[in-house]
């Protein structure tokens, strides 16, 4: 088969008006990429012909493979789907979770939607990767729906067994309104519930508004299970009785008004105790762990670098949010200000901060904002998050740091990242996680960030596919493959490998770099998430490299 399977037209244009067209050609079972300079009209024709070819190949392939064993095919489809970018699957999970919580989860509708999304994702891959095209040919139309059903069933199983998504379910699981009415409530109980700031949810249980107050005071504590509302009512009744008799006197006209806050306080104490017990049952003695972590952090000498400028929070409300958010993760506002300061001559202005708690009681603080220079020109944006894990240890997540080219040249980013890393050491942060994109796919690996367990195999596959298509001698290729079999960070740090062409991750233009760098930068190589522990030899090397960029 010698067919044009894929091509991409970049925006690059020569002085004679011609543009480059990259074509993936299959010959003798091997793939070759060729670049031609053609007129835009020719390029358009080539694109149309390529699309027609793709259509023909898929149709022919489906006829050939109709006898394949269904389960084997689905199994392969499922395993291949795990290699796709996670975005659509994450969104599908979020959407399913939302519906589940509202008793609106429809298995078949979810299956259909997931199947359609999956087929689109596979089509994208097939359009630029001959291996995926070979695979795509084997998939039948109803396979997408079947795999969607598998996903929907897996979701239901997850939601039920983990019980992480609350009490929801499918419309069939929704309690009938008649059941809600079976909760035995007298008018007095209802009045008492109102006084206690208790309301009914759609299961007929008491929803505890008072809980938010308890949780605000005891930040990361989360009550698993249901509070015994009957106990609260009994307490309330008893308190009214006791209060009238003992505390406020029979003739005190305000006794009832005074009583409610008193009862709320009793309920709050009771719930606080329960929260502590639950928390220790789930996570062990968290308070103690946080105290140890903080003691260890206090033992380190904290140094704010002299050449660092400010983190600015102009809005009063936002500052309050930051202060309570810092408190939420057992840090101070000054800790954050020192950590996320911009270099001298610049400032990092916080625009949004949000403290949240996961369903497992893990507190986190997320903040983002804009970096300005002395003249208030916007030079970049930054988004960071800190959270404490179930052991009370701090972890940082670097979601985004994007700077204009001039600021990169000035070392603004390097100084900011270095300062953050030094502050993390002082605060006792245990790890830094980041999402890579564009040039970062190469740089963060070289700096020592290890791809996550989930992303590493995908990254290795992407690099491997790039090497396979590269224009190198067989012996050279084989040696590069061997290097890839070793540590990925070392693979990125190797120098002196032959240069090959790659598609620039931002512009898509053809560029040249040593094959290890080119494979990582290449537009076709997926972004990955990485992590580094804030201690040990690897961390020390990363800090040395960062310092090296400033010194050399």
């Amino acid at each position: 088969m010698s067919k044009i399977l894929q091509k991409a037209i970049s925006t690059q244009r020569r002085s004679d008006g011609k543009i480059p067209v990259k074509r993936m050609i299959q010959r003798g079972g091997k793939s070759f990429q060729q670049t031609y300079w053609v007129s835009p009209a020719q390029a358009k024709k080539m694109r149309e012909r390529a699309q027609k070819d793709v259509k023909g190949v898929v149709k022919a392939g489906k006829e050939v493979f109709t006898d394949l064993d269904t389960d084997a095919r689905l199994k392969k489809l499922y395993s291949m789907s795990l290699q796709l970018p996670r975005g659509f699957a994450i969104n599908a999970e979020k959407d399913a979770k939302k519906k589940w919580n509202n008793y609106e989860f429809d298995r078949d509708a979810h299956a259909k939607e997931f199947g359609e999304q999956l087929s689109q994702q596979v089509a994208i891959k097939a359009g630029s990767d001959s291996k995926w095209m070979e695979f795509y040919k084997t998939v039948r139309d109803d396979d997408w729906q079947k795999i969607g059903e598998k996903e929907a069933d897996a979701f239901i199983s997850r939601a039920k067994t983990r019980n992480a998504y609350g009490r929801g379910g499918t419309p069939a699981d929704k309690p009938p309104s008649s059941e809600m009415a079976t909760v035995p409530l007298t008018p007095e109980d209802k009045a008492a519930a109102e006084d206690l700031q208790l309301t009914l949810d759609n299961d007929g249980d008491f929803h505890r508004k008072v809980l938010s107050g308890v949780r605000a005071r005891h930040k990361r504590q989360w009550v698993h299970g249901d509070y015994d509302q009957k106990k609260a009512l009994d307490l309330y009744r008893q308190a009214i009785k006791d209060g009238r008799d003992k505390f406020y006197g029979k003739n005190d006209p305000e006794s009832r008004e005074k009583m409610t806050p008193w009862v709320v306080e009793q309920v709050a104490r009771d719930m606080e105790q329960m929260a502590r017990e639950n928390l220790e049952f789930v996570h062990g003695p968290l308070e103690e762990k946080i105290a140890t972590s903080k003691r260890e952090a206090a033992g380190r000498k904290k140094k704010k670098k002299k050449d660092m400028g400010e983190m600015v929070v102009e809005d009063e409300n936002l500052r309050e949010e930051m202060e309570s958010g810092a408190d939420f993760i057992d840090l101070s506002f000054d800790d954050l200000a020192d950590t996320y300061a911009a270099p001298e001559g610049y400032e990092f202005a916080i625009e949004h901060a949000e403290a949240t708690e996961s369903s497992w009681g893990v507190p986190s603080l997320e903040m983002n904002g804009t970096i300005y220079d002395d003249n208030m020109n916007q030079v970049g944006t930054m988004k960071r998050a800190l959270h404490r894990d179930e052991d009370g240890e701090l972890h940082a997540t670097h979601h985004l740091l994007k700077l204009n080219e001039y600021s990169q040249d000035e070392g603004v980013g390097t100084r900011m990242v270095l300062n953050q890393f030094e502050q993390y050491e002082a605060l006792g942060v245990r790890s830094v996680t980041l999402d890579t994109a564009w040039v970062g796919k190469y740089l963060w690996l070289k700096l020592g960030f290890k791809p996550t367990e989930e992303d590493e195999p995908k990254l290795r596959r992407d690099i491997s596919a790039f090497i396979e298509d590269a224009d190198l001698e067989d012996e050279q290729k084989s040696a590069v493959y061997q290097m890839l079999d070793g540590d990925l960070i070392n693979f990125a740090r190797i120098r002196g490998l032959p240069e090959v062409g790659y598609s620039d991750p931002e512009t898509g233009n053809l560029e040249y770099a040593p094959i290890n760098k080119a494979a990582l930068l290449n537009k076709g190589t997926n972004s990955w998430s990485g992590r580094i522990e804030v201690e040990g030899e690897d961390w020390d090397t990363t800090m040395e490299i960062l310092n090296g960029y400033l010194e050399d």
Partner: protein
Amino acid sequence: MATSKTNKGELLRLKEAKDKSAEGGSENPIKDGPNSVLDAKAKELAKELAEKYGLEKLKKLFPEMAALLEE
């Protein structure tokens, strides 16, 4: 089917790229310039590979890498 999906796929890809830039993804804030620590690391790795393949073979396969050892 494939044609329409490929076109739709391209749109999705563009949308994903847009979403990615809107939501985050740590771009490169660090200028990848000269770095003596990485120079030393590269030399170490070249040395390891020279031991593995033999210097002569390394010279043949990757002359630029072999040259690092002579610097």
